[in-house]
């Protein structure tokens, strides 16, 4: 997943910048938010920033990022940009996307 140039850099030193797109403060939105915060605490302690966008209030950002489905998480950095749809209740999909599993196993 990582471009070759970044492979040398240790994953645990990278800072992750994420945007969570939600609609309103419904249960679905809250669940997504809780899941994301928990996963980030677990896998990216003290090296992540989460920006939450309520598309009802700010549809332009959703449009800029091509987000039609909510909730969605856009991982802005490190490159390349990745998108995951859903409330993140399936954790393995999230960790797969970020290659966390692989990295952790390497660390062990």
């Amino acid at each position: 997943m990582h471009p070759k140039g970044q492979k040398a850099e240790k994953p645990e030193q990278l800072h992750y910048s994420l945007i969570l797109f939600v609609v309103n403060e419904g249960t679905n939105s809250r669940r997504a938010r809780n899941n994301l915060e928990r996963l980030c605490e677990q896998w990216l302690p003290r090296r992540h920033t989460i920006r939450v966008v309520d598309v009802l209030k700010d549809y332009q950002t959703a449009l800029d990022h091509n987000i039609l489905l909510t909730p969605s998480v856009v991982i802005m950095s490190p490159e390349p940009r990745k998108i995951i749809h859903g409330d993140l209740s399936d954790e393995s999909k999230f960790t797969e996307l970020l290659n966390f599993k692989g990295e952790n196993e390497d660390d062990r």
Partner: protein
Amino acid sequence: MNPSSHHEIIDKSYSVEFQSLPKLPTLIGGLDDVLHGGLPKGRLTIVNGGPGAGKTVLGLELLVRGAETGQSAVFISFEESSEAMRRNALAMGWNLTKIEEEGKLALVNPEIDYETIASGEFHIEGLCAILTGQANRLGAGLIVIDAVDMLLRLFDDPKKARNQLIFLHRWLSDQRMTVVMTVKDGNEKRKFDYLDFMADCVIQIDQRVHEQVTTRRLRVKKYRGSDFASREHPFVISKQGIVVMPLTFVDLVEQSTGSMVSAGDANLDEVLGGGYRKSSSILISGPSGSGKTTLAFSIAAAAAGRGERVLYLSFEQSKQALTSEMLSVGLDLSTFVDDNTLRITAMLPEAMGMEEHLYRIIQEVEEYQPVHMIVDAISATRRIGSPQAAMEFLIRLYHAAKKRGITCIYTNQIFSSMKNELEISGLGISSLVDSAILLNYFREKNRVGRSLLVLKSRGSRHSDKYHEFRITDNGIVILDPQTGN
């Protein structure tokens, strides 16, 4: 073809009164006639059609026509980029960039990544928010969603896709948006059948190729709470946009025929019972070489000589061939062409579909404003496609001419000259025309003569006899009806 058969293709149910539903006029040529006023306002319309049927053009024209009357719209495409959309529209002469700058249009073009990973539940609310946001920004009441089937592919579960679409539909109808969704017909179409149930109005468009001629059809499958012209209507995508050609009640408001005029020859006038009526229609039938074109041109020359414009539509011969042929029988067409009292338009029947022919002819009629029109020969119109297409073409052409009060002369080549005298057109038009003339050969001892018989001539006491005529260097000469000399 019996006299009532042409009624079958006319929508009798047209009624202006029955309009409980608020409608949004599409302002697309002929479409509002078919929809009896326009799209259901604040509701959902589905446009189904195969690839290349013209769904996107229809969607684009809706917003272009809307913008012309000051209405704003949001257009979202799941298939083409906004840039491609602007380019395609420009080819139709529609400058979307200008409409965008005027604040009357928002083009939305989300790039869908079908490989995107999903984790848990997700909903279509993001799209709803974007659409509402853009619509509110522009004060738009119309949202066109192009290729909604592509959006639905984001959901691997059809049931989920369906629920999400229902959600989108409810959301937008809560906002009182008039929504048009286009859906690609195809093998997968059945998966999206529920769209038709959901919608208040369903329009089916398609493009067919029959004997190498392309025709486009539009049909309203459903219109909840409204009357509509339910049969298939041919349409064209012209340089000016879509033109649907419905044959409705409106087309049947014929101008009554006018005063008697001379057919250009005293003997012919006598045989016809005093000439023919202005704004009437005359059918000249006969086997090949019997003098149909010459007779038609004799009548036309008399009209052009009076300064009345004649439009001659040739489906069989080129302009040059016609001109030299008529010169050989003493009719110099070039003087009329130079005077602008005659215009010859040659068309190859196979070159295009029925609606395309019709559209071009009507354009020509609108521009040239002829008093007379000659169609030579209607038998060739079979080559436009099927006999069905030829019949529709003729009936539409007939009504278009009637509506404008144009005198029409149709020629028709018949093949088995002795057998089918009364079925003189074979295309169902014989019952519609006001006058019918049959030309034929006859054998007398060792010579061949030509005969002319007036089969009918509405409202006049025409001759019921066969009259001999000759084609001379000075045109058609009908022997004296009384003496036969």
